[in-house]
């Protein structure tokens, strides 16, 4: 998949996961790995970017004697999700159009 496209999708995926509940890096990767190809190294810059754009906040929780960073979605993050859904309505319309044309072409 195109790198730029994938990045946008992954950001929306991460926000979606966080909108269900706060989570931490390792768990986010696990939750998403069934859906998309994502590694911890891919996730890190995404989390950083989302933090910079104020779509999430970070806090630390003690776990087994170490500090675990939890990410929490913000209002801005929620509206980013809704923007994503709005934008992709058009993509889906185009996709359906092309697929229909493709099937008719096969005939």
């Amino acid at each position, binding site marked *: 998949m195109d790198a730029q496209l994938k990045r946008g999708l992954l950001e929306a995926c991460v926000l979606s996961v966080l909108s269900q509940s706060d989570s*931490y*890096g*390792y*768990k986010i990767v696990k939750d998403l790995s069934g859906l998309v190809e994502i*590694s*911890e*190294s891919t996730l*890190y*810059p995404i989390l*950083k*970017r989302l933090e910079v754009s104020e779509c999430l906040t970070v806090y630390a929780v003690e776990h*087994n004697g*170490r*500090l*675990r*960073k939890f990410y929490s979605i913000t209002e801005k993050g929620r509206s980013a999700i809704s923007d994503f859904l709005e934008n992709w309505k058009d993509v889906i319309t185009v996709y359906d159009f092309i697929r229909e044309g493709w099937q008719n072409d096969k005939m």
Partner: protein
Amino acid sequence: MTKCEFLEALRNALSQLPQSEIEKSVAYYEEIIDDRIEEGMTEEEAAAGFEDAGAIAKQIMLDLPLGVLVKSKVRPQKSPSDGVKWLITALLILGFPVWFPIVLAIAVVILSVYIVIWSVIAVLFVTVLSIGISGIACVIASLFAFPLNILTAFAAVGGGLVLVGLAIFAFFPAKHAAKGLIWLTGRFARGIKSLFIRRESVI
């Protein structure tokens, strides 16, 4: 590779970055490794399941805003102590009569290169324009000549049209040449910038 070895390697690969960025990145990967170990992996497996530290560091640096990156490359991370800062400021002030004329001269030279290039472009277009205008003038003059001497008038019209045609014909090579010269100024500017930014294999 143990967890410590991996984190050390990562820290080294990131060494040019500000301390806060290094700590954040290292803390992230340490947490991942610890989580993996908690899930049952051995330390070896947990520290191994990444691309190598160099590649990770490169990705982190690529993702940083360009400003942070250029600053970290151009200025050494160890911020100079106050004493050194004062010394440098004093030297700059004392040395003003020395470095300022030099910087000014260099700036003037750069400016004159630009002026020369743009003047050539201007000359090209002015030439084409004047050929065109003289052609039109000829045709207009011929209108006055008609009542006086028909032959002269026709010669003037013909000559005028030739000149206008020449101008139109010459316009396109002039535009091409102008574009080439503008590209030249672009190369020149980039060459000067590259003197300041020591770009290495970050890309």
